């Protein structure tokens, strides 16, 4: 992986992926998970990534997070800076350590990048407050609801002040109402910080509500099929956006792109 300096011209690309492929050995020879994936995400933009199940969305995100190595292709992201992570990930499902308190979970990333204890405490406390969990700062994850645990996970990501936020279907295991509230919270946090976000989801509604652009992936092997801009005004309150005709047209447009892929993956 190569890296580009963080300082430079405004609105530069924060993530540049070119010709990315991932193949891994399967029971019947090499399986191509990703094939020639190319896209850019400009700094400060919110980009959603949708695609049929098993298209390699999570694989792509794991490559960006540095958890796995691509077979070929390049990923260009900002250089690391002291006290900050280049990428912070919010995972789906189990996303907190059960043996750490809320505050310790939020401080985890800071601890791993060597932020001194005093600063770590202040920064973690700030982010615990911002997700409204200050009253639960000393609670353990098993004492919280699933939605609260996901807020802890989001606070941990923001606490590391990452250049890029990678979110892997973070709300997939939540009920609809909790999901809406967490989308509100994420939008509010994002509006304040304007982090570059890559948000993997299988929900068309979620993609259109949150993102500036939606990248649609093909079924296996995963490639970027289309790049759909979402020109809806912000802030995007649930009621307003649902009444907006453009919202319906956009989700329908995305389904036009996606349906063939999903049906294809089914057969």
């Amino acid at each position: 992986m190569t890296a580009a300096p963080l300082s430079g011209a405004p609105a530069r690309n924060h993530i540049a992926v070119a010709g990315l492929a991932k193949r891994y050995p399967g029971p019947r020879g090499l399986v191509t998970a990703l094939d020639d994936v190319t896209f850019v995400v400009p700094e400060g933009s919110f980009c959603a990534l949708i695609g049929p199940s098993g298209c390699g969305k999570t694989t792509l995100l794991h490559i960006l997070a540095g958890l796995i190595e691509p077979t070929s292709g390049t990923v260009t992201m900002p250089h690391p800076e002291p006290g900050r992570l280049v990428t912070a990930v919010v995972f789906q499902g189990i996303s907190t350590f059960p043996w750490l308190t809320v505050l310790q979970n939020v401080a985890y990333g800071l601890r791993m990048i060597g932020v001194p204890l005093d600063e770590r405490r202040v920064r973690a406390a700030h982010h615990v407050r911002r997700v409204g969990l200050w009253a639960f700062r000393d609670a353990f994850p098993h004492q919280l609801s699933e939605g609260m645990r996901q807020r802890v996970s989001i606070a941990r990501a923001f606490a590391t002040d990452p250049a890029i936020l990678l979110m892997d279907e973070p709300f997939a295991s939540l009920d609809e109402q909790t999901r809406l509230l967490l989308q509100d919270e994420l939008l509010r946090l994002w509006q304040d910080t304007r982090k570059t976000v890559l948000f993997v989801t299988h929900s068309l509604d979620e993609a259109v509500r949150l993102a500036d652009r939606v990248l649609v992936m093909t079924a296996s092997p995963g490639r970027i099929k289309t790049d759909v801009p979402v020109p809806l005004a912000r802030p995007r309150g649930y009621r307003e956006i649902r009444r907006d005709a453009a919202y319906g047209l956009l989700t329908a447009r995305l389904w036009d792109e996606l349906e063939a892929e999903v049906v294809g993956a089914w057969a």
Partner: protein
Amino acid sequence: MGVTGIRSDRLLSALSPIGFLVVWEALSRTGVLDARFVPAPSTVLHALAGMTRTGELPYHVAVTVRRIVFGFALGAVPAVAVGLAMGLSRPVRALLMPLVSAIYPIPKIAVYPLIIFYLGLGEASKIGIVALSIFFLVLLNTMAGVLALEPAYFKIARAYGADARGVFATVAFPGALPQIFTGLKLGMGFALIVIVGAELLGSDAGVGHLIWKAYQIFDVDTMFAGLLVTAVLGWVATMALDWVEQRVLPWRA
């Protein structure tokens, strides 16, 4: 479970030992049990009181406790380290597992003569046999604890920049700690069995030695007293480990 539920549980668990002693005492006093072979609990307590006054009992108990504590520390610390390494690394596991599987089932008391041969009749051999008897139990439990951890925890750690040491200290060790405690508690039972056994065979002090010495002069009261002390030692040790566990693992629901 409510507070009243916990309270009635405690009451019930006190009932069986007390009831057992009452029946035993009654059988002794009515002459159903021959006092030459099975002394009454009151006689055993009397013998215990006498030995406590002379300082004989506290001395032997202290010797045994000291051997267990040192043996535990000597066995558990490397067991946890090796267990974590085996849990975290497939090659380390492949390398060491056959050896562990082969040595684990050997009754450790059978190794005692060899240990005496190497370490002599002094404290080293007693501490050594305790360490050996708990080592594999703690190791296997630690390894199982790491292997049972959700892969998601390791993924989170790595995504947030944890290196090998960070994963070890923030995921593997705290995550395996409940299982490590299971190993320690099982080990405590084995440690008692083995140390008292070892003291019977070749020692000039300790609770096992006390029982053996009493046998040689057919002092049945003291033999029973020794057994009672062993039981209490095991019970207190388990309580102590439970107490530590509750403080170390507040995150366990």
